């Protein structure tokens, strides 16, 4: 982890802990340099904060901060440009891959990634993501899947699990009435243009480290000009799952990851 040279810890811990001073020299984990040191607007226990940080760590470790362009979605992460300290633009709802395509074609030397939620990518933006993958655009897509529309009040999303209670499915999602949850990665895997597809989770420290590896692999694919790469991140939404953060993290293991299997879906 590249740490920001803040000097924040300097001298503050002196005298505590048997003469062990908290200085920059022994600081082993802190903010990545490209993540702004500000408070985010996400609810307690939301996975967005973790994914934001993982992207910044990947950008810093590849040393591509000056040529990275992110495209923020509509959804809970609509204000992502407030937290990333590199170039970020905003797109219309679901049209993030289309905007990223344009940027990448005009500026092929830049590293372009999109950051999308499940309401953005799997509902209104389904056409854009399928055709972007099918064209094999050399961009990276980070897809944060928490199974509800968080920003608008926890309504059912296409990725909501069967039987899951949301604001619009108060008795649980009915497969007969609402159809089946969409497995976007498996759907894109049949397209020859999609080169790297992986599903990860951020519900435990162990899974977060795996997620970071996946995000770095996806960026590496783009840096090597290998084509379309996408990482789906199973994330928690404790507020609209109506449970505590710890229960939400457990639910990913018990329910969500059993329907959306983790691991590399396609790599070529």
């Amino acid at each position, binding site marked *: 982890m590249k740490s920001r040279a803040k000097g*924040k810890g300097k001298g503050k811990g002196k005298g505590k802990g048997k003469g062990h001073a908290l200085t920059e020299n022994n*600081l*082993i984990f802190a903010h990545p340099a490209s993540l702004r040191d500000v408070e*985010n607007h996400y609810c307690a226990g939301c996975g967005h*904060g973790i994914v934001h940080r993982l992207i910044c760590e990947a950008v810093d470790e590849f040393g591509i901060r000056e040529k990275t362009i992110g495209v923020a979605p509509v959804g809970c992460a609509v204000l992502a440009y407030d937290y990333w300290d590199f170039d970020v633009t905003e797109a219309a709802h679901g049209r993030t891959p289309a905007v990223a395509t344009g940027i990448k074609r005009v500026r092929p030397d830049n590293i372009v990634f999109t950051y999308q939620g499940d309401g953005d990518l799997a509902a209104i933006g389904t056409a854009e993501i399928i055709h972007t993958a099918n064209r094999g655009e050399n961009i990276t897509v980070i897809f944060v899947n928490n199974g509800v529309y968080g920003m608008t009040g926890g309504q059912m999303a296409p990725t909501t699990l069967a039987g899951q209670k949301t604001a619009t499915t108060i008795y649980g999602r009915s497969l007969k009435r609402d159809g089946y949850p969409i497995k976007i990665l498996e759907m894109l895997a049949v397209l020859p243009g999609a080169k790297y597809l992986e599903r990860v989770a*951020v519900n435990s420290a162990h899974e977060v480290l795996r997620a970071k590896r996946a995000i770095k692999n996806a960026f590496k694919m783009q840096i090597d000009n290998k084509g379309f790469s996408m990482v789906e991140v199973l994330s928690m939404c404790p507020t609209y799952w109506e449970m505590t953060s710890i229960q939400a993290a457990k639910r990913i293991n018990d329910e969500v990851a059993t329907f959306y299997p983790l691991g590399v879906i396609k790599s070529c």
Partner: protein
Amino acid sequence: MPKIKIDKVRCKGCYLCIVNCPNGLIKIANGLNIKGVKPAVFSGGKCTGCTMCAVICPECIIEVYR
């Protein structure tokens, strides 16, 4: 000995760090912070500096020193 530092003011109280600390060294504070939640605090003890608490923290407010 390794140490962690948690920004109590910005802690939103999700307590994911508490369940992810392999040695159980993080606890819930007694008092409230400015947000009205009880922040997570480092209780001292044998921290190994594994960084698991900082890796899971959605607010990125935990610094680890070794």
